[in-house]
């Protein structure tokens, strides 16, 4: 259907070359846009971002990182908690009043919405960040029979 030649190149091949050039330009533009967005499109700051480039006090931001082990303390009122969010390079103390999500535990990821007040990050809302690992409950050091029991129990 497209075997007629024009200027020695088959139209089919011409279309292919044109399309490949267009696609390369498109992918290039997409990658450039994604690269330019790299900071704005991030959902949260990590502690080292906050330490390096301090946002002004009172501006609403999100802080994400790991809840440091042993840093979680509940105040006398029972609903206010203090903990430290770290990313391996920097640490930021966080204060939060309210109910925490189920997955919020020491040593796991968290995203806090709030603002800096002095040296402390005051959070209005906590989101638990789940990591990419999926591991069954206590299956690591169990025999097959014990594992089956647990499965039966939790059904």
């Amino acid at each position: 259907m497209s075997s007629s030649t024009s200027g020695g190149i088959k139209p089919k091949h011409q279309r292919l070359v044109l399309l490949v050039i267009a696609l390369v330009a498109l992918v290039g533009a997409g990658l450039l846009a994604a690269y330019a967005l790299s900071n704005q499109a991030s959902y949260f700051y990590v502690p080292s971002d906050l330490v390096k480039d301090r946002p002004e006090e009172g501006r609403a931001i999100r802080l994400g990182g790991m809840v440091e082990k042993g840093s979680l303390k509940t105040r006398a009122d029972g609903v206010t908690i203090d903990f430290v969010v770290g990313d391996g390079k920097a640490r930021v103390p966080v204060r939060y009043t309210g109910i925490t999500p189920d997955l919020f535990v020491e040593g796991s990821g968290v995203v806090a919405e709030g603002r800096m007040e002095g040296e402390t990050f005051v959070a209005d809302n906590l989101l638990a960040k789940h990591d990419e690992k999926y591991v069954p409950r206590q299956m690591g050091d169990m025999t097959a029979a014990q594992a089956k029991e647990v499965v039966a129990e939790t059904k």
Partner: protein
Amino acid sequence: MHGFANPARFLRLARWMMPLLLVSGLLLSMGAVLYGVLVVPPDRLMGETVRILFIHVPAAWLGMAGWSTIAIASLVELVWRHPLAAIAGRAAAVPGATFTAICLATGSIWARPTWGTWWVWDGRLTSFLILLFLYLGYIALSGAAQRDMAGGGGGSRITAIFGLVGAINIPIINRSVVWWNSLHQPPSITMGRSSIDGTFLWPLLIAAIGFSLVFGGVVLARMRTLLADIQAEARLRRKAMA
């Protein structure tokens, strides 16, 4: 390449492939999902909500595979002018959009107990919502092109260009959790390594294969319907002329 340009040959193949794909796909996916819901133990942190994984991940994979199908079909249509390519692209759009919607809905249901929110505007979730909008745009555009065909317009080519341009979103979805800080977790399965325990991984892979077979069966069924539509319309037009 043009062996299937004649729809009769394609239709002969599709006639027995379609039920085969649908039945085997439904059996595999239902088996895997039931196993995932009833047998698999709860996750160490997420508990019972881990079971959504067996629908969410295959749906996400097919939402993206659906647009990849559209992109390849668009390329074949634009370069080789293969008559079945436009039909294949159109046939993949609705099931692709459906799986994308399922992925967004199940993800949202999973997010509420896990993260503590139904929705956030992070890179992964936003780019996947854009994928759904791209699907809706493609479906509207291909519908308009179909009505335009009676007038002999080039609407089908515009649809194909849209299908190719929209494909830029697929690598962005894939990389969104790596390029940008996001609430959505980074990929669990990369290059043959998996941070998903085998207990969850095997039913997940079988569910993904099953969902894919169902997707293939639905695409073939829709291609047959679209071809029958075109034939019926051509027949009507011939009758009107006579």
